[in-house]
Structures are given as structure tokens and as C-alpha cells.
């Protein structure tokens, strides 16, 4: 158990570092917009617009948005970064429970389920989000020629499989919790 607690502490520190990195990425999006603004472009030479990279399955849609003179990094990059940030925060909390020695209690198992749910939800969002964005941009009058974009790539399938694996692990942990409870009540 001490080993689990020790390694969990190290993992938490690494996750915290990754969270900090993601926060920098998220804040780089508004900076990027600021840099791209024609009126303000002469005021700064700092250009970090490529810090936020759009995911491969949305790359085609990002190009379409760029062709329409819309900021693809802000529209597509930001939700991606926020999703990754949420997953990191959930993982940070999960390993917090492990660090406290709560391996078989209800909280980490619930946390694992939430993580699985988020990973499973992301492919759905990946499909729905560009459609909603297109409709919103069309209705708002920002673009007339932007097509409805649907893309299912390998990353979505990978996310689905990963989410299912994490979900099954949470079931296994639930069974382990029952075994642990029985073990504690064996005299």
C-alpha cells in the first residue's frame, strides 16, 4: 500500500505539471486572437498561435473555418484543451484518493466511472460539436458557405475503446471493494 501511495504522489505531481501546461495552452488562445487582430498586430511581436493544435479529426473543419476567416483555434482548440484539462483534473483527484490509501473505497471507484464517462462522451462531442458550430455560425450570419462537417477518425474509436476499458476497470474495482469488505469482516 505504501508503494501505491508513494507512486500516486509522484503521478499527482506530474499531472499537476500537465494541468499547468494545459492552462498555459488555454490562455495562449486569447493571446493568439489578440495577435491575429489586424488593428493590434503591430503592437506585439510575440506569436504563440501554434501552441493550441487542433485535433486530427477536426483538422479538415479547422481548415474550412480558416478559409472563412474564422479563428479555428478559438472555436475548436479551446474545447479540446478544456476536455483534456477536465480529464487531468479528474485523474489528479483519483490519484489523490490513492495517495490517501483509499484504493477500494467508493470515492475512487466513482471517480473512475466519471473518467470513463467523459472519455466515452468525447467521441460524441467530436461528432456533434462541428455540426452545432456550423449551424450556429450560419444562423448568426458569420458564414453562409460553411458545410456541415461530420468526421469519425481513429482517435474517436480509440477514445471509445479506452473509455470502455476504464469503465470495465471501474466494475472490477467495484468487485474488489466487495471482496475487500468481506475480507475486513472475516474474523
Amino acid at each position, binding site marked *: 500500500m505504501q508503494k501505491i501511495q508513494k507512486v500516486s504522489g509522484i503521478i499527482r505531481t506530474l499531472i499537476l505539471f500537465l494541468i499547468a501546461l494545459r492552462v498555459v495552452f488555454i490562455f495562449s488562445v486569447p493571446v493568439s486572437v489578440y495577435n491575429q487582430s489586424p488593428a493590434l498586430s503591430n503592437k506585439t511581436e510575440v506569436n504563440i498561435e501554434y501552441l493550441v493544435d487542433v485535433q486530427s479529426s477536426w483538422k479538415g473543419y479547422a481548415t474550412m473555418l480558416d478559409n472563412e476567416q474564422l479563428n479555428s483555434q478559438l472555436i475548436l482548440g479551446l474545447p479540446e484543451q478544456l476536455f483534456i484539462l477536465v480529464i487531468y483534473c479528474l485523474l489528479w483527484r483519483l490519484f489523490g484518493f490513492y495517495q490517501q490509501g483509499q484504493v477500494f473505497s467508493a470515492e475512487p471507484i466513482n471517480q473512475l466511472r466519471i473518467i470513463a464517462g467523459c472519455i466515452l462522451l468525447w467521441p460524441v462531442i467530436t461528432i456533434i460539436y462541428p455540426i452545432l458550430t456550423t449551424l450556429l455560425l450560419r444562423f448568426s450570419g458569420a458564414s453562409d458557405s460553411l458545410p456541415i462537417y461530420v468526421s469519425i477518425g481513429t482517435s474517436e474509436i480509440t477514445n471509445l475503446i479506452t473509455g470502455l476499458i476504464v469503465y470495465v476497470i471501474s466494475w472490477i474495482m467495484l468487485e474488489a471493494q466487495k471482496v475487500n469488505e*468481506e475480507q475486513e*469482516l*472475516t*474474523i
Partner: protein
Amino acid sequence: MAIVIELDVMLAKRKMKLNDLAEAVGITPQNLSVLKSGRAKAVRFSTLDAICKTLECSPGDILLYQSDDKDKQ
């Protein structure tokens, strides 16, 4: 549950305290209390052996089967 623990009856017969039995058996009074109150999920043979040895009785004197129908009545 169908299995009833009658440890308190046996303790009263032997005029023994729970703490003394726990010490003699080599388990904590808390664990023995769990067993006595019927919250235990399982009993190890080694624990049962030690309890029977200390109380000079057989497992049947401590563990009783009571049908669930009787519980409902």
C-alpha cells in the same frame, strides 16, 4: 441471516468477559464484537478452533442455524 452467533450465551455460561476471550483467542475485542453482533461475513477455522478451545465447547454451541422463515415470524 440464517446463521446465528450465540457467543454471548456461551460467554455467560463460562462467566467470561469479551475482552478476556479476545485476549485468549488472539484477536481484537472489536473483531470479536463484530462476530458477537452477527455482522461478520465469515469465520476462520483457526479463530473458531481458538474460541472453542478457550470456551471448552463445540462449534455447534456457538453457531446455530435458524431458518429465514423463523426470522420473519
